């Protein structure tokens, strides 16, 4: 559990954690065909937290679906740790936008679920230790025996994040996990996730349409264009780590936010005001 993520093999050989190379995908056939991803390329390097920001409908969640192995690209390649993605695998921890924790299991059993699968081969002591660790990390102590139906949306996503960490994945894939939460809970969850990941040092790809969220959490931001989607720009986030609530008012943060909001606005006016 305590292996050092930053000096594993990947960084020494320079192999990116996630590698998207000229990824193309579209829906429909013939004249009705719509290109969604039109040659998207970027990397998530070891230890990086990368947000993918883009206008709605640009296919940013599709990128996550491809990385998770739930779908296949029409062309181009998606690689995790240098190997092409062929399907879902426990080397990738996935957190979904919908509350995907199992409603029939308690918080503890949800977090332990992945660890008890044969693919992960853990003994009972390991399972308990890891489960306890992530219960504490996500602030779920005292709720171990609660059923999901008794939890708020924010608490449910904490369980989902703890569950994703627990199987010790090589990368975390998160698909707008806080989109359904109210503004206040959302900011709190961003801070909780940021702190947790500073401790865990996992590489992560985080899908969002919130500029604020992308800046707060990420070391780099990939901005996608409107459909047919390409990478519009890739930006380093100059806001120093660790980030706190105060970081949101730092000059770097505000400057980057202004720029990104401008970019997002120009894209949405293109969508709404442009030719059909």
């Amino acid at each position: 559990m305590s292996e050092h993520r930053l000096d594993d093999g990947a960084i020494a050989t320079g192999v990116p954690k996630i590698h998207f190379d000229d990824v193309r995908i579209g829906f429909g056939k013939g004249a009705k065909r719509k290109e969604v991803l039109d040659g998207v390329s970027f990397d998530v390097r070891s230890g990086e937290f990368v947000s993918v920001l883009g206008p709605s409908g640009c296919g940013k969640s599709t990128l996550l679906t491809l990385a998770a192995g739930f779908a296949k690209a029409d062309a181009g390649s998606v690689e995790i740790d240098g190997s092409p993605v062929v399907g879902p695998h426990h080397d990738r921890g996935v957190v979904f936008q919908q509350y995907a924790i199992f409603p029939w299991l308690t918080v503890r059993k949800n977090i332990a679920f992945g660890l008890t699968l044969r693919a992960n081969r853990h003994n009972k002591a390991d399972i308990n230790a890891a489960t306890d660790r992530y219960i504490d990390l996500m602030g779920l102590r005292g709720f171990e025996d609660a059923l999901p139906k008794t939890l708020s949306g924010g608490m449910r996503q904490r369980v989902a994040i703890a569950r994703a960490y627990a199987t010790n994945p090589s990368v975390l894939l998160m698909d707008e996990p806080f989109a359904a939460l109210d503004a206040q809970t959302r900011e709190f969850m961003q801070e909780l996730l940021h702190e947790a990941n500073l401790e865990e040092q996992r590489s992560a790809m985080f899908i969002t349409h919130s500029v604020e969220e992308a800046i707060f959490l990420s070391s780099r931001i990939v901005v996608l264009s409107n459909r047919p989607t390409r990478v519009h720009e890739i930006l380093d986030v100059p806001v120093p780590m660790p980030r706190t609530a105060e970081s949101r008012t730092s000059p770097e943060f505000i400057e980057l936010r202004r720029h990104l909001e401008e970019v997002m606005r120009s894209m949405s006016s293109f969508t709404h005001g442009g030719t059909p």
Partner: protein
Amino acid sequence: MSKIWGRILWPLAGFGSFVLVWYLVAVSGVMPPGQLPRPDEVVGTLATQFRDDDLLLDVRLSVLRVLIGVAVGCSLALPVGFLLAWYTPLRQMFDPLFSFFRALPPIALIPLVIIYLGIGEQARLFILIYAAFFASVVVIYEGIASTDEIYVRAARSMGASEMELFRRVIVPLAVPQVLVAVRVAVGVCWATLVAAELIAAQRGLGASIQDAANFFQIEMVYGGVVLIGLSALVMDRLLAVVMKRAVRWQDRVGG
């Protein structure tokens, strides 16, 4: 306190007011004499029948027939339901066919059943099993097929094998749906019971209603109807309790 009211006293008040209206109509003389017995006369007849004519045997036989029908019908429906839920082409192939058989009233099959199975116990059980199977199989596969893909994806992303996926995700998700199906089957089987017992049954609640009607024993006809209703109600309530316990994790529980 309000729990007792909600669970026991209000339902009792519902039955009480129904019996009261029944009583008032019966004594008012609106109905021609001899056509509507008073509730107490019906209860009296039932008491005599239980004592002199072993009415309990009829109740037991009917309950047993319904239980066998539900047990066998649902046991057959379970694997078929899972298969149809899992393999979309299979479902597309059989869904219209199963809907056809489900829509077919079991009573319409009685002449055929008599031709092939005669008028023995097998014929009655066949009708009940048929009714339970088609009532429950559709509920099972529609329920399972509509389970949220997100849980399957979540389990796969954690490394679940096909077997683990089935055992630890599909089955728990299916439990509420299967219980709903059993409950539907119980309802349909009780509704079909009288038809099944029309096939030359000597005993059973359906048979005793039929006998009583043949001899114009109107009190006993009412008594039989009341007993069928009561037996079905008790079974349904018991199932509702089982459901509540088995699917405590659900946000909403019918019952």
